């Protein structure tokens, strides 16, 4: 953790003074010709979020520290740990200031060269730069890369650009200015709510309920004691927007919640974060204790007389806790099972007090809206869906990572420009949006604008923002089966339609994937899906049939091929295919024989081998081993 000496700020003037003091230190990141501060000539920003760390970013960090020390440069070069810079595919990645030089796919042995060339001579090391996949030309500045150029970063503005463990870097970038502004109007919270209303912000957790209207309900609810909650239980497989935000810019969330508490009239808040995000939890704890030390959180905030307290609750691993009533029970220390609404949490929520719950991205948008005004925010996006949305780009695309785009952009632009199209020159098949509650969009639907209404209309939903792109090799029936096995496992079991219905639908899908499908199964699935949607208690059950309905809607022919022809068109369902060796191509190298875990392959050296299909478990290891000769195929 960064150790900063923090002195309590007693008013907005103190905050301004702290900002003025912090700014010169960061000047070289904004302007290459800025005056050197404290003898520090360079800032090396090393992305150390969960993604880059698993690509080896910690070793890069250590290599820089060791090399700079050895060369006597450790006093003049600052190595800064940053949160997610967005382009996870390229990790480990760094940015060197001044001159803003962007290096990707680094290895520890590259570091001395960067120190010699870039730090000592201010020259770029060409081989370590990002190379445009088409022109193959190196690009020095990340802003010129199409992945970044097409984005509109108004929420992720600090993410990957400041040290998330330093409150003074946040304050230097106008942090807590919105809080000071809100406190100056604390007797006119109607006016503040009006700004949120004008912004048109809608819940970023998936539902898209207008945020200001939700706040109003809780604000107007009778009762002295009120709570606010941040839902950071990002459970959708394929989504990591909230994790990146919490890891990269935790103070933004804290500030948003403090302002929300002021407007709603709550004096206590909880952040419910899943335990699978240890780094996010650590950064949030650090941010909270820094804000408390500065008097930006706790009693008598900025000398205003108003107090607000914030706690972190770690989830214990239950997807259903993303549902707000279940989440509330979990905070209370009970089994996280949903209850029927009404009463809505706005009237009777946590410990039966009026409670307002929003997700991470919604809360983190608040400081920008209060600081720049609702109209500023509403100038981005479409008529019904204002502002920007952060998406996690995953699956079979070239550029996996985090992207913030204005609402109304087309899915095609996101997939083919920002995410760089499909890996290995394969054909795009569909994009799954909204996780296990959402649906998929085929090629014919991806030219529509991305906004709440048009996605619902297309049978999908915004969800929290996970985009999983699949190519021609993905079986859509298997994908639907995958989602159902997830929701079946995560169903809390309280209501029958979800508990039994998801099991029944999963059985039918498993049968279809194993070649045991029957005529009429598709219709039966559709009927079950409709009933489960109508009769389930909470959002988990009500939305779990969506992946089935949308794959049937757009890929009915794949279901039919499984049922009527006993074939998997994508060649993915293992029970519907076998592995074969082409005797014409096989050179008898024995690599497949050696790797086969069940000894199903036999043959003499330099002679064509054969696979015993009865023994074969279809694990695919032999195909990998035969990558050069390509003699093994599935059929």
């Amino acid at each position, binding site marked *: 953790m960064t150790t900063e000496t923090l002195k309590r700020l007693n008013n907005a003037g103190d905050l301004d003074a702290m900002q003025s003091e912090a700014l010169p230190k960061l000047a070289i990141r904004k302007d290459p010709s800025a005056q050197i501060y404290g003898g520090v000539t360079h800032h090396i920003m090393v992305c150390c979020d969960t993604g880059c760390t*698993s690509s080896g970013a910690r070793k890069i960090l250590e290599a820089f520290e060791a090399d700079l020390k050895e060369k006597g440069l450790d006093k003049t070069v600052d190595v800064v740990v940053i949160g997610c810079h967005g382009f996870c595919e390229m990790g480990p990645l760094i940015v060197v200031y001044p001159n803003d030089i962007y290096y990707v796919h680094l290895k520890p042995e590259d570091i001395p060269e960067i120190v010699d060339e870039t730090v000592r001579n201010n020259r770029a090391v060409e081989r370590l730069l990002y190379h445009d996949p088409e022109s193959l030309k190196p690009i020095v500045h990340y802003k010129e890369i199409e992945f970044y150029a097409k984005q509109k970063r108004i929420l992720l503005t600090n993410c990957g650009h400041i040290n998330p463990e330093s409150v003074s870097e946040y304050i230097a970038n106008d942090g807590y200015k919105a809080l000071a502004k809100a406190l100056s109007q604390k007797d006119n919270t109607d006016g503040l709510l009006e700004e949120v209303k004008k912004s048109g912000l809608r819940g970023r957790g998936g539902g898209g309920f207008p945020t200001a209207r939700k706040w109003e309900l809780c604000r107007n609810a009778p009762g002295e004691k009120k709570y606010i909650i941040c839902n950071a239980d990002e459970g959708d497989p394929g989504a990591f927007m909230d994790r990146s935000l919490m890891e990269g810019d935790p103070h933004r969330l804290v500030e948003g919640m403090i302002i929300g508490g002021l407007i709603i009239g709550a004096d206590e808040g909880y952040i419910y974060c899943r335990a699978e995000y240890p780094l996010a939890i650590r950064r949030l704890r650090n941010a909270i204790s820094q804000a408390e030390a500065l008097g930006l959180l706790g009693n008598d905030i900025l000398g205003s007389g108003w107090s607000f307290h914030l706690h972190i609750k770690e989830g214990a691993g239950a997807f259903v806790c993303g549902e707000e009533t279940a989440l509330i029970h979990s905070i209370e220390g009970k089994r996280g099972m949903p209850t029927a609404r009404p009463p809505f949490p706005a009237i009777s929520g946590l410990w039966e007090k009026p409670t307002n719950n929003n997700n991470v991205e919604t809360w983190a948008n608040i400081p920008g809206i209060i600081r720049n005004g609702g109209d500023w925010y509403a100038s981005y996006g479409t008529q019904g869906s204002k502002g920007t949305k952060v998406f996690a780009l995953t699956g079979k695309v070239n550029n996996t990572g985090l992207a913030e785009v204005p609402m109304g952009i087309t899915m095609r632009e996101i997939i083919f420009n920002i995410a760089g199209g499909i890996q290995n020159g394969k054909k795009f098949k569909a994009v799954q949006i909204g996780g296990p509650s959402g649906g998929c969009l085929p090629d014919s639907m991806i030219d529509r604008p991305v906004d709440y209404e048009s996605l619902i209309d297309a049978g999908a939903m915004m969800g929290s923002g996970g985009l999983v792109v699949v190519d021609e090799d993905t079986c859509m029936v298997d994908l639907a089966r995958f989602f159902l096995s997830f929701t079946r496992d995560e169903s809390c079991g309280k209501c029958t339609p979800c508990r039994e219905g998801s099991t029944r639908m999963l059985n039918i899908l498993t049968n279809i994937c194993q070649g045991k499908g029957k005529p009429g199964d598709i219709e039966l699935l559709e009927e079950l899906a409709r009933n489960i949607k109508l009769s389930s208690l909470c959002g988990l059950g009500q939305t779990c049939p969506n992946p089935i309905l949308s794959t049937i809607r757009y890929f009915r022919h794949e279901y039919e091929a499984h049922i009527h022809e006993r074939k998997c068109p994508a060649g993915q369902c293992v029970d519907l295919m076998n592995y074969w060796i082409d005797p014409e191509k096989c050179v008898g190298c024995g690599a497949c024989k050696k790797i086969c875990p069940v000894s199903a392959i036999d043959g003499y050296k330099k002679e064509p081998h054969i696979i015993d299909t009865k023994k074969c478990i279809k694990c695919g290891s032999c195909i990998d081993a035969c990558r050069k000769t390509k003699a093994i195929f599935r059929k």
Partner: protein
Amino acid sequence: MGSTSPSGQSVDLAKLDPIYKKYEGMAKGSLIPVLQAAQDTYGYLPLKALDAIAKQLEIPISQIYGVVTFYAQFRLTPRGKHIIRSCQGTACHVRNSARILESLKSTLGVKPGDTTEDLKFTLETVACIGACSLAPVMMIDTDAHGRLRPDRIPKILESYSN
């Protein structure tokens, strides 16, 4: 002093005292954090410890048992020194995480949820760890390993075997 749990291992209940102390002021809703801290201490939740927690927090053991069995995080049996979480989320699924799990199963000789005989590794599956951009991924303790291939698994496991 230590009493003996059904599995034959002794459970030092004194280790719970600092945990009670930490959450003392938080009268409401402290059960889950207490259980999390207890599991951090023992590596799992011995029944003896649950009994003691029930008495301390004045919550019926039946209710505690209900909470423990509801959440995926809590364990009633001892676990290995290293916890392997093989991600089976959407992004990993479409990038063939099933084969990573197969490789883990055959290398360790256990199925998900089980612990190797030498108590070195526990194999688990997880729905998503949020490192989707590096799919397929797994976590060993708190380290994420990304862009996995089935043939790389034995080597990665070897680096943890000491």
